[in-house]
């Protein structure tokens, strides 16, 4: 037999040769010093590579019980096509928020997705009492206490409602007007009991929040625009959506605006407590189309951006910033 190649030596050492191959290799090695030397070299290399990989290993945690890994995959696939999307962006200090987004370079206190995400995760764990959780709930998570930060932001979106369409609405030109709402979300600081979210604690008061959504660049644009979107009449909003806009019950609608670029998209501004809630809402058939496109892109791709979401019945809640427990539970209470 000719000399043994490196691949065979590795397979030999990895115990992956068939008995016949192994026997043949043994026979050759017995009579070939050069190959024995190379075998030793490969052995050293394998050990070294294994050690290096060991240096880059994560800390090991016990796996949470399998039955706790619930995931509403089937449910969500079923839900989204039926749903029309409503996104609620709730920001503290909306006036600042608006300015901040319009001139990011001029504002020193912005907190963006990277720092807010850990807090958001901790919070979504904390509020996750519903069966519609993402399914990654685990005991370890229970350690996560509510963040103490007073800065807050919250996004809610996607509510189910029967699909209905109005093609006529799509062609109507938007009216132009402006308006601005500025106020503070009720946000009393709670005692600092951070653990999992400690890294994100510096999310300071008065910070604005940017939503974590599938396409940050696009979302930013939406948020920036939404404050200058033309104000529309309720009837127009109905026409654009093909149904009544979703609102948080019991609170007056402050302003309705339409997206001049995407006629099927509107924003509903509501004053809740002393904060302003923006609900981004889209026509249901538009949502169906988006959901289909996501589904076509592959199942694995479908949900990677939805990790911060929790469901309260049919309303999808996405949190992208620190919010006090009080404000959060109050808001969730309202939505329920």
């Amino acid at each position: 037999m000719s000399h043994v190649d490196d691949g065979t030596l590795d397979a030999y050492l990895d115990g992956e040769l068939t008995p016949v191959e192994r026997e043949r290799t043994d026979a050759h090695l017995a009579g070939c010093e050069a190959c024995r030397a190379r075998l030793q070299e490969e052995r050293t290399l394998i050990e070294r590579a294994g050690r290096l990989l060991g240096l880059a290993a994560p800390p090991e945690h016990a796996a949470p019980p399998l039955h706790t890994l619930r995931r509403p995959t089937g449910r969500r696939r079923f839900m989204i096509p039926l749903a029309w999307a409503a996104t609620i962006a709730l920001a503290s200090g909306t006036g600042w928020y608006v300015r901040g987004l319009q001139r990011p370079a001029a504002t020193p206190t912005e907190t963006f997705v990277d720092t807010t995400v850990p807090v958001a995760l901790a919070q979504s764990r904390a509020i996750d009492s519903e069966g519609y959780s993402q399914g990654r709930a685990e005991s370890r998570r229970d350690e996560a206490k509510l963040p103490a930060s007073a800065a807050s932001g919250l996004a809610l979106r996607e509510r189910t409602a029967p699909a209905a369409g109005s093609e006529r609405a799509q062609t109507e030109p938007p009216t132009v007007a402006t308006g601005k709402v500025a106020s503070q979300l009720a946000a009393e600081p709670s005692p600092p009991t951070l653990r999992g979210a400690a890294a994100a604690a510096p999310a300071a008061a008065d910070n604005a929040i940017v939503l974590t959504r599938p396409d940050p660049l696009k979302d930013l644009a939406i948020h920036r625009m939404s404050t200058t979107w033309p104000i529309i009449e309720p009837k127009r909003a109905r026409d654009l959506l093909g149904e009544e806009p979703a609102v948080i019950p019991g609170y007056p609608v402050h302003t309705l605006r339409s997206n001049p670029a995407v006629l099927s998209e509107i924003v509903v501004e509501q004053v809740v407590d002393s904060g302003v809630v923006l609900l981004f809402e889209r026509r249901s058939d538009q949502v169906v189309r988006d959901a289909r496109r996501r589904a076509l892109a592959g199942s694995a791709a479908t949900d990677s951006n939805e990790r911060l979401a929790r469901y309260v019945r049919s309303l999808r809640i996405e949190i992208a910033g620190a919010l006090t427990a009080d404000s959060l539970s109050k808001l969730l209470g309202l939505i329920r």
Partner: protein
Amino acid sequence: MPEDLADVYRTTYTALVRFLYRKVWDAERAEDLAQEAFARALVHKPDNPRGWLFVVAANMARDEARRQARERRHLTLLKNEPERATPAPDEALSADLERARVRKALDDLSPRDREVLLLWDAGQSYDEIASQSGLAKGAIGTTLARARRRLVEAFEKGSEAEHVARR
């Protein structure tokens, strides 16, 4: 289901987390993704759960990387302050440094070499690696030999470069 998912979960969870960690480089995120992969397996009930899980995990990690790249772009557009490196304690520093070097060395591998190496390190057999990577089983040993050699070389080269730079 030919293979009980509960068994696979017990035997494969840690390996899947490790596999994912080398892709997303965030321990908690790796666990989240691993759990999500298993949760999906509960729904999908694949015939070959182990292989299926690694394929799904690899896809999720890829999506994650894309999403992070987008967020980074987003942040560079928005951030008005450059990120400041936070000083770390010494012991953490050296472990972090080593990890960073290994990470760099892994990044230097070709995607195929890296994938095969990570799958092997996550306890996959040659047969399993072959079916997941699309390589012939006979090519796995060769690929692994090359990947291991390059990993070690890249790591050592990286270390040398740092020593030179410090002088």
